């Protein structure tokens, strides 16, 4: 990454985003320890309102909403990270190949991404999830598939941009083997845009995973997953809003934090990018 760490906290939005993400992470890690009840313990009346014993009331079955929130922070967190990471690795590999390979292969890969990009991503995910089933690992895989075409296009573009620069040409003339050129010359120079895109995918993954749970294709009950909690308690939204509202707020904060960080980092990157690009092309 080409920006220095001290530059990070200067962006106010970036700082707010990092704080939110840190909060979400701590909540997920410490939650299960702090929760007063098990996530599936029936401890109160269905939809009982908030009280001293249960700050956010009870859900449609009479489970403590606070306990379920504390237990359930981890699923959307690891699943969104895993799907963004899987999409990054697979997509970058294919994209770099396309950027390196001949015209034919490149065109075939680009057309392939066009085909996949014709499906609205949630539709593709629904199609595959209904096929594969709702194991958490399979859901992660499916969400990753929907994001791969975007990564391929990005990785291809930046690879082509870097591959024609002087230092790559020099390495080629010096007779370095292709893997060395790839890992030592090209990869370090395309890492930043790919990492910025990773952040953006993370924000998409959060809303897609929560949306899947909301539609009933996410992790199976009685897990304390946030999207599932919204789904389960949606019937009571009008009269007993707290049981559905609390997970809504927490997903919202997570999504907002991830967005602010992704935005802040890409803005920083753009600023540094224009500086270096300007310098690089002056000569």
């Amino acid at each position, binding site marked *: 990454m080409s920006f220095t760490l001290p530059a990070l906290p200067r962006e106010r939005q970036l700082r707010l985003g990092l704080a939110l993400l840190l909060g979400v992470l701590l909540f997920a890690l410490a939650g299960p320890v702090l929760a007063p009840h098990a996530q599936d313990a029936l401890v109160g009346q269905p939809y009982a309102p908030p009280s001293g014993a249960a700050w956010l009331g009870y859900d449609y079955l009479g489970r403590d909403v606070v306990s379920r929130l504390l237990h359930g922070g981890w699923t959307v967190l690891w699943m969104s990270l895993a799907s963004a990471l899987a999409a990054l690795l697979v997509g970058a590999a294919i994209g770099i190949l396309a950027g390196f390979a001949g015209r034919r292969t490149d065109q075939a890969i680009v057309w392939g991404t*066009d085909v996949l*990009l014709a499906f*609205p991503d949630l539709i593709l995910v629904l*199609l595959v999830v209904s096929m594969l089933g709702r194991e958490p690992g399979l859901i992660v895989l499916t969400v990753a598939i929907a994001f791969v075409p975007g990564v391929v296009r990005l990785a291809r*573009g930046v690879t082509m941009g870097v591959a024609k620069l002087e230092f790559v040409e020099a390495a080629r003339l010096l007779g370095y083997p292709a893997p060395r050129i790839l890992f030592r010359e090209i990869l370090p120079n395309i890492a930043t845009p790919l990492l910025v895109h990773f952040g953006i995918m993370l924000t998409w993954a959060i*809303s897609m995973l929560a949306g899947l749970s909301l539609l*009933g294709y996410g992790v199976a009950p009685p897990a304390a997953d946030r999207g599932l909690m*919204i789904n389960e308690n949606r019937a009571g939204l009008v009269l007993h809003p707290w049981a559905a509202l609390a997970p809504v707020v927490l997903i919202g904060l997570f999504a907002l934090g991830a967005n602010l960080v992704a935005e802040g980092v890409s803005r920083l990157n753009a600023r540094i990018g224009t500086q270096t690009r300007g310098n690089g092309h002056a000569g």
Partner: protein
Amino acid sequence: MTSQPFTRRGLLIGEDLEGRVALTVPSWLPWLLRRLLVGVATVFAITIIVFAATQALPSDPARVILGPEATEQAVAVLRGQLGLDRPLPVQYAHWLGDALRFDFGRSLDSDVEAVSIVRDRFGNSLVLMLLVLAVTIPLSLLLGVALAVRRDGRLDRVAMAGLILFKALPGFILAIGLILIFATNILPVLPAVSLLDPSRSPLAQPAYLVLPTVTLVLSILPFLVRLVRAGVIEVLEADYVAAARLRGLSERRLLWRHAVPNALVPTVQGIAMTARVLLGGAVIVEVVFSYPGLGSALNSAIEMRDIPVIQAITLLQAGLVVLVNLLADIVTVLLTPRLRTAARPTLKPGSRAAWKLSGGGT
């Protein structure tokens, strides 16, 4: 990558991380033909994906139709009648032939033609989509230009922060928030669910359309406003605009004659990209509001493993995305004089993906 102001103007439709995504191009007819050919090939590939995916669904249509009590023999006979015992490529060829004639067979769930279900729902979805676009496009142009003119001012900063909030929040959170505010205790003026009367046009029942429309508008508005704003700022800072300013052209003329028309090109591509986002986002919004559109129909078809309906809807949606992108590329060429008249126009591959990467997407 030399960037002379005059090659940038008009040619520039966006910027991806490899640098400029430029449109340089042909007398546009060969381009159009090639573009159409690619579109057809894409739709063909989409049919293969849809067919393969629905084949892999863990259910047997014959068993679904006859129910769990039917004997194995009866199921086997029906499988023969439905052609399910033939090799897959043969089944695909038959299916494709029928699909081209808009025949997807009967819904496994409700025993009417799958296409008739889709037709009813498609009308409702189309009304919703067109309404969303009719609100979003003028609004994002106005807002984008207004913010670009006041860039880094107080209004700009407040609005941009607000837009980040709406961009960050998943569609269903906006939907639930709107329901809580406008359909429950706080300000109960609108219905929480869109129980359309199917015998009347959705437009005759506007109260049911308001919340779904507002949700979808809010979820795509940030992307488009930022696109317009960035486009206008880019042109306003270009050298040729500075030259025109020095020649004494009024700011108003600069804005409306130079900046806005040039910012329209990326906006057209951006709107095409939102088609994909809208169709996906509509599934969740339609389900949350119980709006009887394509998205909620797809959701229940998947639940019921109603393969003909799933096939018809996914093909229709993917086909729509291909069509919208094709139209957007044509409009882009028409809006850009250099492309319209240049000797050899070609859209660089990846130009549209650049939009997604520069902040589009969900």
